[in-house]
């Protein structure tokens, strides 16, 4: 951490030969959507050649603020000033003219095109006819000087998530943006990838070439890479300061409005653990037909959380899909309560198996169906929600109202299509459906807190632990090691489709876990 801090003081003095980035100031910015006040009189200043983090919970107005700067939204009031002059930015194209570029939370490269095509396409002034020979020469020269290298001829679909994110940043450097706005740039990256990407950006900032404004709610990254922070809460300015002068709990306090300790985890010991889920030598293939899961054996007992850690793409997704019935296993057997389990609806019901898959909107919801209908997906074909082959809408509606209440799902009505809810509320909807049953015996959860804010994460962790304490057997697959260490009783590492490490969580050797994850 000390070298970063030193670098910061250096960066403040202009470095000869480098055009310093301009100074960006937001003055009294407000944005109203109808009656909703998304942003209320917020001011902030991004000093040249600094790494500035914009913090806040989901819905605090961070995205609205940067979208106002970028010209996506027209602010209701307030101004953007660049180098002390008021600038009218009406579109991202105007922003590019002022040297401001944004890297979005989701990749904005075209998957079927090559890196070179995507870079050329990103230029607003790209010529009508593209002289590929000349462009290639220029791109090769650009790539040589760039902080990270990517193959120009590779299509985006072939790149790993980390490389895609690098391309998004390269794009901005290619466009000669001096101010980079990053919207949660690491949300789809593994910690190692995130550190690499942010470290390289940090280097550019330290060299005085660019300024960075990064939306984030990962304190680890902010402590390691940012110089200053601005915190928003419910659309209002909630605090600012230098990272050096602040602690994590002070930042969290600014964000949440009150000091909050992480909830202590209460675990009840179970005396007679019964094996609930037994996985025997399961093999499964990826979409492209290559082997993803190469023979894994695992037993999960009642009242136990077994965590599977691993860098994404090592077979955990395919394993969960096999267990959820979404992907056929090429070999092996799954037993639940000692009986062969083939993921039919009848067996799921009989053995009380429930699943919280990752990307719930894609894997566990029907986006165009209502919240109530989605909540009833497990139960609609049984009394009291069904009478013979007819549905009893009243029963479905009533259950939905009850679940919306207990699980605090924020939805305008039970009839709203679930696809219209925010990510956290979609996750709550699935959680409500999967966890409300009393008789649940086995829960399979994959990255249940991915992309959610603190309050939602705490809530979901609480629900999972509560289920464990009731005696549910839980298989938890997660890319967040902290989450696994906090929740699980036993931890395994999957690498290259096989388990590379196993231990009880209290005896887990952190260094060895890291090594196993990296495949050593």
């Amino acid at each position: 951490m000390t070298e970063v801090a030193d670098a910061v003081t250096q960066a403040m003095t202009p470095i000869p030969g480098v055009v310093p980035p301009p100074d960006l100031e937001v003055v009294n910015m407000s944005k109203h959507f109808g009656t909703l006040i998304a942003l209320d009189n917020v001011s902030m200043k991004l000093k040249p050649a600094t790494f500035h983090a914009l913090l806040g919970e989901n819905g605090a107005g961070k995205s609205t603020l940067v979208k106002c700067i970028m010209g996506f939204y027209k602010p209701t009031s307030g101004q953007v000033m660049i180098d002390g002059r008021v600038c009218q930015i009406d579109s991202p194209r105007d922003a590019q003219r002022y040297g401001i570029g944004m890297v979005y939370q989701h990749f904005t490269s075209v998957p079927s095109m090559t890196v070179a095509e995507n870079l050329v396409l990103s230029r607003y002034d790209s010529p009508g006819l593209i002289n590929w020979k000349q462009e290639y020469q220029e791109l090769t020269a650009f790539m040589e000087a760039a902080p990270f290298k990517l193959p120009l001829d590779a299509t985006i679909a072939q790149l790993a998530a980390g490389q895609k994110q690098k391309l998004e940043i390269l794009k901005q450097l290619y466009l000669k943006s001096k101010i980079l706005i990053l919207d949660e740039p690491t949300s789809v990256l593994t910690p190692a990838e995130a550190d690499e990407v942010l470290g390289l950006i940090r280097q550019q900032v330290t060299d005085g070439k660019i300024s960075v404004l990064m939306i984030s709610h990962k304190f680890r990254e902010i402590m390691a890479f940012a110089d200053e922070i601005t915190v928003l809460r419910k659309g209002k300015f909630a605090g600012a300061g230098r990272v050096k002068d602040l602690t994590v709990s002070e930042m969290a306090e600014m964000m949440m409005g009150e000091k909050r300790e992480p909830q202590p985890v209460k675990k009840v010991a179970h005396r007679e653990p019964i094996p609930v889920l037994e996985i025997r030598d399961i093999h499964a293939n990826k979409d492209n037909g290559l082997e993803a899961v190469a023979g894994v054996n695992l037993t999960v007992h009642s009242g136990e959380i077994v965590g599977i850690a691993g860098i994404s793409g090592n077979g955990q997704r395919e394993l969960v899909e096999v267990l959820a019935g979404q992907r056929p296993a090429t070999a092996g057997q799954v037993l639940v309560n000692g009986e062969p389990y083939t993921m039919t609806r009848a067996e799921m019901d009989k053995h009380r198996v429930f699943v919280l898959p990752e990307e719930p909107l894609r894997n566990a919801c029907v986006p165009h169906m209502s919240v109530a209908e989605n909540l009833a997906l497990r139960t609609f074909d049984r009394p009291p929600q069904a009478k013979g082959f007819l549905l009893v809408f009243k029963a479905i509606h009533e259950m939905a109202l009850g679940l919306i209440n207990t699980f605090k799902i924020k939805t305008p009505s039970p009839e709203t299509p679930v696809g219209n809810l925010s990510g956290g509320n979609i996750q709550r909807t699935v959680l409500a459906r999967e966890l409300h049953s009393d008789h649940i015996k086995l829960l399979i959860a994959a990255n249940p807190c991915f992309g959610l804010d603190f309050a939602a994460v705490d809530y979901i962790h609480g629900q999972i632990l509560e289920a464990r304490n009731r005696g549910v057997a839980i298989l938890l697959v997660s890319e967040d090691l902290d989450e696994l260490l906090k929740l699980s009783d036993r931890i395994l590492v999957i690498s290259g489709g096989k388990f590379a490490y196993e231990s009880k969580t209290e005896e887990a050797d952190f260094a060895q876990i890291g090594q196993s994850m990296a495949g050593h």
Partner: protein
Amino acid sequence: MAAEALGWWGVPLGIFAGTLRGSAPFLFVSLGECLTEKSGKINLGLEGTLLTGAMSAYAISYLGAEKWGVPSALSPWLGVLVAGCAGMVLGLIHAWLSQQPKVNDIAVGIAMIIFGSGIAFFFGKPFIQPKAPQLPTIDIGGWSTMPAVQSALKISPLFILGVFIAPLMAWFFKSTRWGLFVRAVGDSPDAALAMGVSIKKVRMLCIIAGSFLAGIGGACLSLYYPGIWSESISSGQGLMAVALVIFARWNPIQCLWASLFFGGAQAIGPALQAVGIEQGRYLFNAAPYVLTLLIMIITCSPKKTLSGAPGALGTISG
């Protein structure tokens, strides 16, 4: 049929000639569909566009020569142009309808098949009988003394035009700013939006341009081969062309090969018939349809994702 004098050699010659003759409509419709699908929309309505194009080309060619005093060398070309424009009108309707919120392209496409063929049948009634001037052909069979070979090797200039459009379109997708925009819109609308490209406009233009090509495909049918106007003239070629685009992996050059392949398959039946094989004639005539089905079966797999498919193909907007 021309192949009689050649005996069994007539079969390959017949298939070859049939390929040159019959593949032009496939080529135009599939290129049009390729352009449309590259932008992320499906236009099943090209079947209707094909029929409307065939009817309007024939009608204008006939009316031009007989009623309006246009020279009979020129009036078929006028017909071709009008067929393209008629296609554009249908394309505009499809583009507008299919981009309304929560509207499905397939449903609109089927409606447009019915609408396009209905329009063609309605206005085409009076033109079933009269004989319209046909498009000129380029004879490449002059070297041969056999009339069978000569008559088999008459190529339509439209076919040659289509052969040139295929690489031109491939080049357009690769090396022009607009071509990259079209691919971006079809593959990742979010990315296109972030680049400041209007998805609606790009798709609208692609659908209209694609329908223009399909209209010209119709003109090939009525003004070159078979060279008549009747209600059963398209026999589903517009729909087959949609399958053909999948077969061609959304690549214009491969659309050309696939069109030749389908055109050839279509010629198997008549070529065998010409040498006197009457048995199983309906079976051979069904070759293109069987091929379409086979391609669908081969390319559909629950385990593999289709390579080359535009990412946003057929998704519902809004």
